[in-house]
């Protein structure tokens, strides 16, 4: 511990802190532009100057390590003068275009010049003008505003792992650019917009949309992937204008992926705002009551074992729970599942389907093996954590099969199940590596759980890790990477009602064995429709609505309160930021009203009742012990990692124009000129 004095306040700080951090602990605010907690120290904006005893000149506090007996002053005339001077230089070339700048109102430079700057300019010369740079469909540049803090360069290099942004030229003429003005090829690229302390890098889809003080801010949870990033939803009236990250050190720190941030314009397009019924191959508007009546009639005339339901990838847990109750109590059918693909899962033990290593402890790992997973696209934040682990302790990373660029080096192992058997039988080099590793992480992707011998592979890996004491109180090495926000929640609520962990409901649906199929926001189902009556309850007109005979308009994740369990098994609540469009209703309400139409009685009195029942269910949940018959069904086959269409992975993203642009940019598709 070091003893430091800041503004006559004595304090003890840990070793290795900088003067700036010490000042913060003493409660003294230090203005800064280039310094950022998560990035390396650059020390080039000079805004954080403070006075140190025995130093003739002020020191840059962000770059100066604190030492014992240091006496710092942050409120002297010298410091004030130094800050004013720095501010004047920064503003010398900064345009006075705050009224037309998108950063206005949330601009570090604006705020700090109000506090620490001087009120008039002495700069009579011409201001420097810098040409705009193209950085892709997400980042709008106005480089004249740049103050060369280099946060974006450091972010790209250190966090995103793509060395594509740099500073060319020098001195006054230094310019920030991507190499030859190419698009930033990262799923985290838009975080530079948040990092930029001025309006040089702003959000392209949000350009001139709103001022920060006009927006209603709602803290919520993201559903674009299973990470459950903490977000803030900014709305103007009904419209979701933008989505920003919220700091949660245990999950997403302060970054979010581009899809999380920019798929929100998909909430405006392709919406279903009224109940629709299919007659003669066209959809016609229908009253809610008539729609319910139609379902009632259908259900009455169909035996309950001929009715099936599939829940979707964005469905919140309340809806899942009420759907489950609806199937149990009203329809009295067990044909309910959450899987749109044949994925092996053993729900006896919660550890079988969650990501057991806490996200904030991944960086402690010393060996990471990816089996059938591409974390970069399936869970971008997870990929970032793996990269942090690699940077921190040069973690050895292996992957079954080549999954493309992951922003860190990894060794490729042949993508054969035979290799897994060799490892389990201690015949492979990797066996030794696993045994020697103190904190290994094995990540099993959804692609692995889809293959024929997934049951064998999963259970054998688990057995092997247990045998070698890699699954213990302190460290859980077996991890399942789920791709969807609702996956873990669905398993927690036992939506997969089938007896032997296989998705029998799905195969029966695909064999056209049912007469009525309910799709609760399920858009990824691949099946050929015959004579089934399909009811789609969801927010967007997509694959699900296309095959439906009756469409009931539901809500998206920003339009209703809802719990989501992320891949680690953390339950978080997303709050309502907007309201459903047109005649659309919150999902749980639709099921509740439908039940009351059929049975004359609501399933739940109100939302609170539903929430409490659901949480109670999770609390009292008794694991049903199914016998997981472990026949030695080993099969030699390839572990193919599915191509994961990052920008088109769910209904909201598919409806989003921004995501389409990003996807086209990625596919290097030329514009056809007809997109409007």
């Amino acid at each position, binding site marked *: 511990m070091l003893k430091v004095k800041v503004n006559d306040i004595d304090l003890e700080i840990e070793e290795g802190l900088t003067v700036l951090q010490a000042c913060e602990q003493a409660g003294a605010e230090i203005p800064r532009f280039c310094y950022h907690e998560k990035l390396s120290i650059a020390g080039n904006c000079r805004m954080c100057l403070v006075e140190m005893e025995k130093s003739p000149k002020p020191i840059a506090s962000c770059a100066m390590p604190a030492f014992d007996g240091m006496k710092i002053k942050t409120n002297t005339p010298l410091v004030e003068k130094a800050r004013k001077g720095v501010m004047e230089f920064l503003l010398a070339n900064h345009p006075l275009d705050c009224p037309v700048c998108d950063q206005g109102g949330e601009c570090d430079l604006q705020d700090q010049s109000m506090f620490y700057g001087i009120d008039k300019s002495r700069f009579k010369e011409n201001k420097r003008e810098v040409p705009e740079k193209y950085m892709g469909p997400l980042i709008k540049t106005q480089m004249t505003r740049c103050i060369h803090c280099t946060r974006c360069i450091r972010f790209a290099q250190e966090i995103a792992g793509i*060395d*594509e*942004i*740099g*500073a*060319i*030229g*020098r*001195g006054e*003429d230094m*310019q920030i650019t*991507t*190499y*030859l003005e190419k698009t930033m090829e990262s799923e985290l690229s838009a975080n530079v917009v948040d990092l930029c302390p001025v309006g040089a890098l702003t959000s392209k889809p949000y350009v001139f949309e709103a001022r920060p003080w006009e927006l209603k801010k709602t803290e919520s949870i993201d559903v674009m992937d299973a990470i459950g990033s903490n977000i803030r939803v900014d709305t103007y009236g009904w419209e979701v204008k933008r989505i920003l990250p919220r700091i949660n050190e245990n999950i997403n720190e302060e970054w979010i992926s581009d899809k999380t941030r920019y798929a929100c314009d998909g909430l405006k397009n392709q919406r279903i705002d009224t109940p629709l019924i299919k007659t003669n191959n066209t959809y016609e508007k229908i009253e809610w009551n008539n729609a319910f009546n139609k379902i009632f009639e259908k259900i009455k005339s169909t035996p309950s074992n001929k009715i099936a339901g599939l829940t979707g990838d964005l469905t919140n847990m309340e809806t899942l729970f009420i759907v489950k109750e609806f199937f149990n109590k009203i329809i009295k059918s067990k044909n309910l599942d959450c899987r749109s693909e044949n994925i092996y899962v053993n729900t006896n033990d919660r550890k079988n389907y969650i990501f057991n290593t806490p996200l904030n402890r991944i960086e402690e790992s010393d060996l990471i093996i990816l089996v059938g997973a591409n974390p970069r696209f399936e869970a971008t934040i997870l990929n970032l954590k793996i990269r942090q682990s690699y940077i921190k302790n040069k973690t050895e990373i292996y992957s079954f099969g080549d999954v493309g660029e992951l922003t860190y080096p990894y060794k490729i192992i042949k993508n054969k199940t035979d290799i897994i058997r060799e490892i389990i039988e201690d015949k492979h080099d990797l066996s030794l590596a696993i045994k020697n590793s103190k904190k290994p992480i094995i990540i099993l992707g959804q692609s692995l759980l889809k293959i024929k011998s997934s049951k064998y592979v999963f259970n054998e890996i688990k057995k092997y890790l247990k045998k070698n004491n890699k699954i213990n109180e302190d460290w859980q090495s077996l991890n399942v990477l789920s791709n969807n926000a609702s996956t873990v929640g669905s398993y927690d609520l036992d939506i997969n009602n089938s007896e032997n962990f296989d998705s029998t409901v799905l195969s029966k649906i695909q064999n056209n064995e049912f007469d009525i199929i309910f799709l609760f926001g399920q858009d990824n189902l691949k099946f050929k429709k015959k004579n089934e009556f399909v009811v789609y309850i969801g927010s967007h007109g997509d694959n699900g609505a296309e095959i439906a005979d009756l469409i009931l308009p539901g809500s998206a994740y920003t339009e209703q309160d809802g719990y989501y369990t992320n891949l680690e098994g953390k339950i978080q609540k997303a709050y309502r930021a907007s309201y459903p469009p047109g005649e659309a209703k919150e999902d749980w309400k639709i099921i509740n009203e439908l039940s009351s139409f059929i049975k004359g009685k609501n399933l739940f009195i109100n939302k609170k009742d539903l929430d409490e029942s659901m949480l109670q269910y999770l609390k009292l949940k008794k694991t049903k012990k199914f016998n997981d018959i472990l026949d030695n069904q080993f099969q030699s086959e390839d572990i193919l990692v599915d191509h994961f269409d990052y920008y088109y992975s769910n209904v909201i993203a598919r409806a989003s124009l921004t995501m389409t642009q990003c996807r086209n940019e990625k596919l290097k598709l030329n514009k056809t000129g007809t997109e409007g």
Partner: protein
Amino acid sequence: MSIKKISKIQPNNFEFNDENFTLAEKFISNYPKGKQKSAVMALLYIAQKQNNNWIPLSAMKYIANFLKISYIKVYEVATFYSMYNLTPVGKYFIQVCTTTPCMIRGAYKLVEACKEKISKDEKKLSSTSDSSWIEVECLGACVNAPVVQINDDYYEDLNKEKMIKILDKIKKNEKIQPGSYRGRKNSEPENGRKALIRT
């Protein structure tokens, strides 16, 4: 100084020739293992020497792959230093010093001569495209101001007429004599050495 422009005409390919390849390896071996990227400046210089005194983008890419660093890192270095030429220059590359001592001694007259004889604008090839000129900051030979650097040699104590003569010779591809053009030896006083003489 403004930002350096990249040439619009770019060769598709660049590779070190055998001699430069070994030279590059030698420069890399000067640095500890894993710090090979420190050799980027030396390698850019070698590439510039090999490619008629300018560095094309393909050479930057080649060097980036050679040192296993990203393209932008090489690009940053190449745009930072003024002595890397990113556009084609003439066979005779004339750098006129216009920093204060040379300026006082009439460097702008030399610039005039260049404008008349080579091209109106700096960094632009002459009509025969064998020479180009550029204004540079201090060449460090203020004692012999005004100074001009043509390729690797200094031409000192010039005035406009002498400069024109040199440029005429260049045009005819004749050999030119480096050094002082007022008969001085190095930077000794004109009327003989006054100090450090053995008595």
